[in-house]
């Protein structure tokens, strides 16, 4: 198939359709409206359900109901809307049914703004709703990668009976890039042995997240945890650039990782031995690979569009063995490649030390520069 110029949000929506999206339920919020709008036209065209719900609460619970039948379903939203969906996400996790969530982050907290941000990393990667559970979180850095991850998200969600989230920000959602879309898959519902489809010629089924007896709830929690261990063991995805001889390893996901790659290329041209590690699965996090890279590097430079949320995972992986530096922009500010290049150049010139809190060093310089 020929490469075509597509907007990120629309391409994500079309990719979901081609991955066998059977129904979509959503609510408008910027900067992901084009997903909802695209599907409002395409789904009826294909005879598939599309409902614009009264709120994110309604949307996620429509997804919950439809997912109980084993249908491939998804919703999409942005930061304040995702917060509203947390109730339903927790129930879906507790009921152990698959769904896909597209989470197009924007600046926060509160109403914040509609600019690209990565400030909801902790919210989605660490569970978000109440209770002990982990969604799978995939973070693309381009429209093509987002398109490629949509079928992966559906497959993983069904394989592990879990929530799979494609986590991006408004810049990837709204930029236009040449992409190749996947072929249209046949729309075919898997007859899962747990799906509530009507008890015809079989025993009736109940889907619920309630386990009144704590020992039963503990068993459920352990089942979720063991499933998560399988995900951790089998489903890690990363992108690595110029890491063979890298003394400085830049780590960033999504848009921050993409911008860092430009900076890394320029720094390489200047003779700096720097590479980029870009986790694609941010949950589960590739702790082991980060630890391996850290063991060979002089210093790690973590770059994020938040105050250092993934930094915590890097610190956990490195466990104080390698110095870590941090650079972040907040509130919807997107760093320029030159800013990250400056950080790479700075780091290349100093003898890095292991410090207690890399983000504190960054905060000091941020405070000084914004005075």
């Amino acid at each position, binding site marked *: 198939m020929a490469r075509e110029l597509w907007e990120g949000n629309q391409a994500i929506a079309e990719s979901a359709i081609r991955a066998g999206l*059977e*129904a979509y*339920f959503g609510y408008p919020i910027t900067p992901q409206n084009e997903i909802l709008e695209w599907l409002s036209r395409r789904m009826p065209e294909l005879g598939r*359900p599309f*409902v614009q*719900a*009264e*709120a994110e*609460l*309604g*949307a996620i*619970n*429509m*997804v*919950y*109901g*439809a*997912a*109980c*039948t084993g*249908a491939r*379903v998804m919703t999409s939203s942005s930061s304040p809307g995702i917060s509203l969906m947390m*109730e*339903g996400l927790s*129930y879906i996790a507790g*009921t152990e049914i698959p769904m896909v969530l597209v989470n197009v982050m924007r600046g926060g907290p509160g109403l914040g703004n509609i600019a690209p941000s990565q400030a909801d990393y902790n919210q989605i990667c660490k569970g978000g709703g109440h209770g002990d559970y982990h969604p799978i979180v995939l973070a693309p850095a381009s429209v093509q990668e987002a398109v490629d991850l949509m079928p992966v998200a559906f497959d993983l969600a069904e394989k592990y009976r879990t929530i799979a989230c494609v986590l991006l920000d408004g810049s990837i959602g709204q930029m236009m890039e040449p992409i190749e879309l996947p072929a249209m898959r046949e729309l075919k519902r898997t007859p899962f042995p747990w799906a*509530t*489809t*009507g*008890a*015809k*010629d079989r025993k*009736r*089924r*109940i*889907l*619920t*997240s*309630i386990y009144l007896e704590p020992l039963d709830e503990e068993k459920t929690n352990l089942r979720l945890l063991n499933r998560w261990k399988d995900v951790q063991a089998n489903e890690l995805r990363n992108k690595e650039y110029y890491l063979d001889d890298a003394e400085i390893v830049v780590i960033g996901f999504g848009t921050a990782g993409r911008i860092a790659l430009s900076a890394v290329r320029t720094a390489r041209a200047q003779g700096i031995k720097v590479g980029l590690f870009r986790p694609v699965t941010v949950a589960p996090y590739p702790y082991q690979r980060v630890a391996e890279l850290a063991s060979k590097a002089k210093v790690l430079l973590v770059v994020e569009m938040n105050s250092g949320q993934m930094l915590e995972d890097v610190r956990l992986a490195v466990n104080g063995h390698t110095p870590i530096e941090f650079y972040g922009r907040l509130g919807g500010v997107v760093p320029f490649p030159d800013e990250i290049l400056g950080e790479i150049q700075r780091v290349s010139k100093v003898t890095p030390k292991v410090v207690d809190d890399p983000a504190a060093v960054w905060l000091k310089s941020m405070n000084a520069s914004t005075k």
Partner: protein
Amino acid sequence: MASLAIPENLVYERPESFTDAPTHYCPGCTHGVAHRLVAEVLDEMNLTERTIGVAPVGCAVFAYNYFATDFVEAPHGRAPAMATGIKRVQPNSIVFTYQGDGDLASIGMGEIVHATARGENITVIFINNANYGMTGGQMAPTTLPGMKTTSSPNGRDVELQGYPIRMAEMLATLDGAGYIVRRSLHDPKNIRLAKKAIRIAFEVQNRGLGFSLVELLSTCPSNWDISPVESLKFVEERMIPYYPLGDYKVSPAIASMKVG
């Protein structure tokens, strides 16, 4: 020799749409009656295998234990949204929610109003017993003026706590509503009328005629702190005057429908 055995005349049995699980409801509560009416209707219409129920949060949270159909359990108030999701991907299934007044008229107000407005082809059984039963008898949106509850210990003061909400009347104003009625479970005659309404509601869904809701005035002797008999009297004398029984919306296609 002539047989002495009296021919069996079966007048009452457990509906096939019921499981054999004993219910957890308090003595004198009308949830059991409402459950039974739904189960009888599912039996009569031969819908058990096609039905997916949506349980609420509230006293009926365990409704899934009692019906012999597939069942899901919704977050508090969200049953109409879950039912929407199920029905949209399985239009040939029969999907019903069973919700109390705290669930439907308070936290779930958005979901029920919009499911009605969309004309979702689902059936809602709405139990109005004027309080939050499961959590111990707090004030509900349906609690009558002056009625004492654990969170309105001096009686509901409408100046401070507002007025009760008449859901059937309110939802009937929406163009998406197909069949919206209020019935009561306080005596055998009214129970029979309630059953007929539930039958019509499921017929409406089965024939694809739109959104149907049956509000059932119900008792809560435990939290009202009166006997089951006094509770039935309370429904008749106190609740019905505030919540008049009747048909609030019967769309023309449904009015001409023959049931039986």
